[in-house]
């Protein structure tokens, strides 16, 4: 039975499941590195998902759906940026407001645009896998190719995009002017201010980047996984992403790898549900798995992970 579970598509599925978490987690990384907590990722992702579905349904183009999701994510994150940076609100409270707002706005627009709550029609043009290679045949070589093909070459565009984002963000954070300044902002914003770095602007940019990535995560859910929008479909992924960011020690590649762990748990629980007949465990327990894993990971890692020193603290000039 183990052979039936540990198949190439389990790992491929782990990569797919990890993608929205990873995008949001990297968003969280950039945002927290600049000194702003982003509890709002859940809501940003949800609104991104809705925008992807709505634009996809309206235009028939998956790519326009993705663009709309990014735009919506940026727009929502701007609210968080304004309230956290300019109004100096409590960042966790502001994020919570956005999460509630996202539930309200998406539900409201569902009824306004489609006349019913619940789930939208299927988006006609989903984003398709980039490559189309046949699987290998018999024999060792064939098997190896089948594994490689499903794990590496079976994916949709945003899955690859997420990997690229992780690598580029990591490089940029440690090699570029922007990255050095970002790291300074979250640790000691006043030090950054005294050498002429604009703290508000730096934080605004980071928050909006996290909005773009959160929107992209939502687009992935709708356009590459589910195929339609359902109310509250993010189901806590924004919070799991934050845990992944912590587990990844506030680095983009770390966030991606941590998301892979959660993605694998998700893929595994889906796979195991197929074997319900053989393993007599109710499906709800499988569904709990990612959430339990999140708590376990946080319990195991936190003491040793050090967050940016100034995260969550509004910057006061002068």
């Amino acid at each position, binding site marked *: 039975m183990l052979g039936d579970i540990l198949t190439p598509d389990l790992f491929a599925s782990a990569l797919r499941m990890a993608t929205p978490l990873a995008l949001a987690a990297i968003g969280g990384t950039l945002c927290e590195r600049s000194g702003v907590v982003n509890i709002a990722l859940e809501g940003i992702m949800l609104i991104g998902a809705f925008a992807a579905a709505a634009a996809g349904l309206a235009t028939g183009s998956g790519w326009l759906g993705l663009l709309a999701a990014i735009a919506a994510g940026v727009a929502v994150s701007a609210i968080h940026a304004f309230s956290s940076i300019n109004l100096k609100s409590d960042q966790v409270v502001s994020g919570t407001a956005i999460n509630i707002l996202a539930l309200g706005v998406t539900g409201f627009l569902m009824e306004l645009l489609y006349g019913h709550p619940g789930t939208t029609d299927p988006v006609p043009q989903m984003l398709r896998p980039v490559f189309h290679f046949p699987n290998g045949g018999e024999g060792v070589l064939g098997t190896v190719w089948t594994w490689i093909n499903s794990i590496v070459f079976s994916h949709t565009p945003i899955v690859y995009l997420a990997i690229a984002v992780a690598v580029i963000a990591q490089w940029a954070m440690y*090699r*570029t*002017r*922007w990255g*050095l*300044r970002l*790291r*300074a902002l979250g*640790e*000691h914003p*006043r*030090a*950054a*201010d*005294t*050498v*002429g*770095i604009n703290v508000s602007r730096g934080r605004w940019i980071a928050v909006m980047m996290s909005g773009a990535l959160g929107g992209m995560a939502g687009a992935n859910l709708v356009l590459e996984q589910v195929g339609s929008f359902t109310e509250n479909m993010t189901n806590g992924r924004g919070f799991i992403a934050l845990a992944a960011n912590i587990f990844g020690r506030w680095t983009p590649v770390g966030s991606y790898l941590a998301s892979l762990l959660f993605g694998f748990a998700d893929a595994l629980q889906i796979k195991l549900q197929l074997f319900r007949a053989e393993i007599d465990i109710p499906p709800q327990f499988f569904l709990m798995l990612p959430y339990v894993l999140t708590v376990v990971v946080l319990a195991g890692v936190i003491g040793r992970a050090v967050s940016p*020193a100034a995260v969550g603290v509004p910057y006061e*000039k*002068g």
Partner: protein
Amino acid sequence: MSVLELREITKVFPGVVANDHVSLSLEEGEIIALLGENGAGKTTLMNVVYGLLSCDGGELLVDGRPVKIKSPRHAIDLGIGMVHQHFMLVQPLTVTENIVLGHEPARFGVIDFATARKKVLEISARYGLKVDPDSRIMDLSVGMQQRVEILKALYQGARILILDEPTAVLTPQEVRELFAVVRSLVNEGLSVVFITHKLEEVMAVADRILVMRDGRLVGETRPSDTDTVGLARMMVGRDVVLRVEKAPRACGDTVLEVDGLHVKDDRGLEAVRGVALSVRGGEIVAIAGVDGNGQREIVESIVGLRKPTSGTIRLKGEDITHASARSSIEAGVSHIPEDRHRRGLILEFTIAENLMLGDHRLAPYSTRGLMRPTAVTAMAKRRIVDYDVRTPSERVLASALSGGNQQKVVVAREIGRDPELLVAAQPTRGLDVGAIEFVHRQILKERDSGKAVLLVSLELEEISALADRILVIYEGRIVKEFAAGEADDETLGFYMTGGGGSKLAPETGATGARGEGER
């Protein structure tokens, strides 16, 4: 021509005039000292010059040209650099990263770290300020961090350097080194503004002294035309008793006895390495040392905030080594913490609520978990009078009090509890002269009534004013003991920096020898 000129600068905060028509000028190659008490407006004035604050009136001239400095960036572009009292260094970043931050050599946004490192080494060699460009700031000593701050300003091309209370955290030896560095900078054509409240320092380093009080410039003089007494009068506005009267000590039984104490710091490194000390009733024992040599960890383990790894702590013979903060308070240990905003007070609480903190579980303030507001109010009213806390009511929030009055609340609580042992950690940090006098008198009163006092201070002046015995701490060990009046500041400083047989000799920078000669 003046490199920097301030004309009638005025800065108003809601309800406070921080700078009231202040005018001054700085000539090329000159060191001026801006002298004044905490809260006199010195730092505010320089923050205006550095573009961190905008002024509400007046004019600024750099090289004779009027300028409106809108941001630190602008100030830097004009050749103004500032070393802040609280260092503006990003702890997890390296020395190089901190120095180039904001002015990174880069191509298409990608930092050229090789060039950055080379430039840092160049400047460091040119001014004789040695640093390791690849160390992380958090691994450096305070003196080293200050050096990085100066290098940062020089890297940014500063011609005018503002130093805000630069000696507050340094040992006497490091101070002399700093003065030497400042002089060599001036020889290179820089001009320096030196902000301080320490009288000896201005006498030693300044070409010209400007005294500020209550936001106004109240006097200008030269070291050759005045002495510390005159300066003190100008600074405070009245005659100052620089030393509190002290009765001869009458020692009682041993109250605190610490033996073989080992304690780890927050990072898990051994910060206290086998300390033994004892304090008897009726004496003040002071621990002198450079910040970060284990003083905090000793204090925290005595008051029950930190678990020692080994050793014993006894209070009147009773073992309190593993006592919690609560049982340590109940055993008779009081604690004036070094940081009143972080540890001493709950700013959002009223004065009354703050005054019962630590005793709140005890009668008469509460019985079986229920508070007794009348008893609390009565106690608060009494202590407000006894300790001269300036407030209209005990229901005022602690955050609404001035720094001096806040510290009086802490002192009232800790001494008012009538402890066996008072542990006072930097009890006068950031206070003005009046409040310092008050706190010193309270501590002496405690000693004179036969109680034991353990004082930790970075200010040698405070230590020599209060202590009956002085223990010098270096790298977690007591390296020397002196009776009151037995050692001068230089000697103390020598032992504080590891002199006298310990493994490290006082660090001598490239300019150290010159500093020695000029004293």
